[in-house]
């Protein structure tokens, strides 16, 4: 069939289909790029060490080593470390979400001298590399007797996080001023306005903030490594440092299997909260 024999109106349809084909191809390639490393991690967790080191590369395991996952689970107190991670991440994510919302509300809706400067300092503090503050942080918590406890995460949670403050500020600044004025006329103070009017409106940002904070904390290696003893440490630290031979050299296939199990909770949380997460990012002017 030639183009000239096509019925009227079919050319735009062909163009639409071709456009979709290109779009889907691009999407599949992009998805592959993002999913590829995780897929490789899963495959690495199913190989023997020798197969992992083979050249040319063995893309698929010759004999699938399912037991690697059981070994990775049993070699360390996986559930114990996961519990520690869960406690720390939930505690921190909950507190920092609420405190950041509180601070973000203040910056968005209240006027005070030096507000802009303060906000600038707050945002500027995001540029401070964590490495610089490591030793002073340790010393402060050591002096306060908080080393080897979960108190640092409580304090960090109560102190709000600059990026999340920015997220909430953007969202709250976008809400109509009439809402606030009507509430003041009805006799509400700012605490009530925040708690009963603004916070319930911000579920998408709350959700995004919780996911971001939970992921930060779940994935953080440095703080638990620095502040907690081995037994009280987190899964991130255990997975990175415990799958080793008697000589201390890494066992890569068990590390891969352990890492797959380590990221599963994050994936689940994201799957559950993704709608809110995307909405939160798009309604706060950050899309």
């Amino acid at each position, binding site marked *: 069939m030639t183009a000239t024999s096509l019925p009227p109106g079919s050319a735009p349809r062909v163009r639409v289909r071709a456009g979709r084909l290109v779009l889907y191809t691009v999407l599949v390639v992009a998805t592959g790029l993002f999913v590829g490393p995780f897929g490789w991690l899963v495959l690495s967790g199913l190989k023997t*060490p*020798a*197969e*992992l*080191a*083979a*050249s*040319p590369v063995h893309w698929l395991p010759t004999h699938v080593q399912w037991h690697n996952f059981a070994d990775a689970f049993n070699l360390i*107190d996986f559930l114990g470390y996961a519990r*520690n991670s869960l406690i720390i991440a939930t505690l921190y994510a909950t507190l920092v979400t609420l*405190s950041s919302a*509180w*601070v973000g509300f*203040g910056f968005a809706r*209240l*006027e*005070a001298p030096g507000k802009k400067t303060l906000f600038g300092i707050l945002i500027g503090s995001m540029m401070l590399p964590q490495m610089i503050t*490591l*030793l002073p942080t*340790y*010393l402060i918590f*050591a*002096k306060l007797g908080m080393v*080897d*406890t*979960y*108190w640092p995460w*409580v*304090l960090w949670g*109560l*102190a709000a996080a600059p990026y999340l403050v920015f997220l909430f500020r953007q969202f709250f600044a976008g809400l109509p001023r009439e809402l606030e004025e009507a509430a*003041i006329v009805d*006799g*509400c*103070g*700012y*605490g*009530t306005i925040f708690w*009963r009017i603004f916070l319930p409106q911000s579920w998408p940002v709350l959700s995004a903030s919780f996911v971001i904070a939970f992921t930060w904390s779940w994935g953080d290696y440095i703080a638990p*490594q*620095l502040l907690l*003893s*081995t*037994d*009280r*440490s987190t899964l991130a*630290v255990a997975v990175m*440092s*415990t799958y*080793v*031979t*008697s*000589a*201390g*050299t*890494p066992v*890569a296939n068990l590390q891969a299997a352990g890492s797959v199990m380590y990221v599963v909770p994050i994936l689940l949380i994201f799957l559950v909260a993704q709608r809110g997460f995307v909405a939160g990012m798009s309604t706060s002017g950050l899309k």
Partner: protein
Amino acid sequence: MHPRAGASLSRRRFLALSAAGGATGAAALSGCAMRVSSGVSGVGETVTVMAKADDFSPELIRQARKDLGVKIVTVRYDITKLIGMMTNGAPPDLVRGVGATDAPYFAARDVMEDLDPYFARSDVLRAGDLDPVNDLWRYDGRTQGKGPRYGMAKDFSQDSMFWYNTALFDEAGVGHPPETEPVTYEEWLEDARRLTRRRNGQTTVFGGSYQGVLTPNLLASLTASAGGNLFTDDFSRIDFTTPEARKALAWYVEYGRSRVGPSIVQPDPNAWDGPTYQAGRMAMSNSGYWLGGLINTDKKLAPLSRLAPAPLFAGGRRVSPCQAGTGFWMPKKAKNKDAAWRVFEWFFGEGPARARASGGWGIPTLKSLRPLMPAREDYQKRVLKVQNAELRHFSVIAFTPYASADSLYALFNQEAPAAMNGHMSVDTLAGRLNSVMNEQLKRGKEQVG
């Protein structure tokens, strides 16, 4: 909670509450059981050990409780954390360390406990039973290898030796290196070239890996093998321009440039030689006896593998040092020294030491434990014979106390790639290394005094 009508929150009160909320929350929570578990529980004492996962497994910690009645709490080894703990005046009771480099560094800073009085009292760790490798943990204020003991190695290897896979040598038609006499470094590199296999630009078989434990120790060992010293007599300066050090540096640059093995310009994704050697993709691996712990578990690979003496440079001298001697030391400000020493004795001289000796992952550091080294299979006996002969050539190669090996390693990695990629001559590299490393050593000397 419903707001009281008329009790509106002013801006001032809002801001005040923001500040007070945190403090109140923290104060309220302080009554909660935030401590995940209590410190000491039950009978006995608690010893805090800064270690890596392979040093103190949960089983070993349980065994210590059973054998000694001591509770061991481990914190993962981390130099930032160690500095933080020491600065705070509450260091661990025992700390993991690399004798070859950490002993002079920390001893010179006067943070290590002199363990001579403890050794003198011990029935478990007797001076006559200590292998000479433990001298890596001695420092007299000027030279490593002499003076008081500050720690002990848990096991060791002579890290300039190398393993080779006879099947890959046979495939390439290359004669096997002798097991009794050392080859020269020049011969080793030539063999590595002939053994290397490439396909489509990818290295499918590394002819040989020669990276040492940490590059600064490796370069010090190579220089000693060429007949010289990398450091000046007072260890305050480094000199890569002496004929011996230059020879060692030129050889190592050529090793990297020739791409016969993993290096900073051609890293092995496996990060260490074990998996690559086990996969039949590495003909020679510069690993000491300890790699036998892995090789012995592979019944196909073990009979094909041989251990060879440390090479030497043509016209150089035969030395076979230990570049690590990893073990433990006791900080001077440790809170629980007696209990820590009991753990020390147990770890280095009792059950755990016997288990390590029979595991084949290193040579025991007590002479009396040597009969426990694996020698059941023929290939194990063969390896042991080579290893025992090599012990005669052991010597301590002293390291500078004025810089950590890690800092010198970072400086080397910053400068050397240009030379290994052919963009810089060895002489220029030697000059640059002298410049940046001596600056680092100068700062260290100022700190130590």
